[in-house]
């Protein structure tokens, strides 16, 4: 068992230091690059927090949808083949819901400020 602090706590501490202490001191193109770097660290902390739960739910949906067992990547490849061949399409019960949920879970990690994501999240909360 590894000791504390956790990876999330370490990355957060570094990101906060860069954001609060270093970013105000940096100008020009390096300021832009620093912002990209801080965004990357923030993305990693979101992934560490969310990935386990969303991967498990995605795997369960894929097993149901395909009636197959396998790893997440194997079942995603199988789904891709079925969509490409036309065997599965938007009329297939559960496909649209699965793609929406999987995509929302990706955006929650990659880009939670993306306007399309915020709009769709609002629909879920209102609905």
């Amino acid at each position, binding site marked *: 068992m590894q000791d504390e602090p956790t990876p999330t706590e370490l990355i957060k501490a570094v990101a906060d230091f860069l954001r609060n202490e270093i970013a105000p001191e940096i100008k020009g193109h390096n300021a832009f*690059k620093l912002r*990209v*770097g801080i*965004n*990357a660290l923030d*993305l990693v902390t979101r992934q560490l927090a969310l990935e386990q739960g969303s991967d498990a739910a995605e795997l369960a949906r894929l097993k149901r949808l395909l009636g197959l067992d396998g790893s997440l*990547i194997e079942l*995603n*490849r199988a*789904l*891709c083949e079925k*969509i*490409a061949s*036309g065997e599965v*399409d*938007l009329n297939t019960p559960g496909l*649209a819901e699965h*793609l*929406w949920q*999987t*995509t*929302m879970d*990706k*955006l929650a990690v*990659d*880009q939670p400020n*993306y*306007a*399309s*994501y915020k*709009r*769709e999240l*609002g*629909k879920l909360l*209102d*609905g």
Partner: protein
Amino acid sequence: MIEDQLGRCVASWYPGATGVTGAAKLSGGASQETWTFDIVHPDGNVGAILRRAPPGYGASPGRAAGLDAEAILMQLAHDAGLPSPRVMHVLTPEDELGRGFIMQRIEGETIARKILRDEQFAKARPILARQLGRVIAGIHGLPKAKLPKMREMSATKEIADLEREYRSFNWPRPVFELALRWLRERDPGPSKEVTLVHGDFRHGNLIIGPDGVRAVLDWELAHFGDPMEDLGWICVNSWRFGEIDKPVGGFGTREELFAGYEETGRKVDPARVMFWEVMGTLRWGIMCCGMMQRFRQGPDHSMERAMIGRRSSETEIDLLRLLAPRGG
């Protein structure tokens, strides 16, 4: 020093020029660079831009039209009265600057967030979509006989190219599969009319002033094809920068864009434009994945490329919004 080379070059074709000053690289990969500089002249300095492949970089990669073609297209657009910089000089071997051209520098803004938010563009925003419709119609109407040799594309070829590239990543993306299937099923076939297509008509390649559009830049992806492609590409959500209810670049409506386009006597096919918007959304998503590939394999091991790879999911949600919209 590039200023010495540019000074000698400019003196050979610009009467009275005594040299250049303030040369600075604006952007550049390994094969293509853009420089800004001022031509020093007794009547006052003149702003100029150098676009070149440095010596040793001959051929242009893959889809690129090539710098010689770019120069011809910009000059043709300028001569037709479209917002385009005047090409001042096409580089010759004697210039020892590589291949490329020097053009007039046009002042203005290309950064979308500023164009969409800054007060100085408040009067431009409501007129831009219509203006750009007229401009893109002008580009599509440029005299065919004078156009340089370029690749010819069709929807069928574009789908095949995108599919080949996506498969080369060997990473399953069910939403991209759905989009490819959707596009194949709705492929409208060869366009009745084949025209010059700019190929990258969007924020970043348009110089905007408080008065509206001042220049169309970056003809690197120009080709012959379906004119509706350009109208679809500028509506892709990735170029709305958060203003998702204004489909044209985050500042205007499709109706305004189409009205401007049709003022010139050309016709819009809205269904075809929508088809190209889906294609464009997928295309940008696959380009993001390509950035990730180059980050992993190539010499450019930069955070920026890596993080652009994580933006392909943005196009997945936009594809779902187009192909499987939810209520609410």
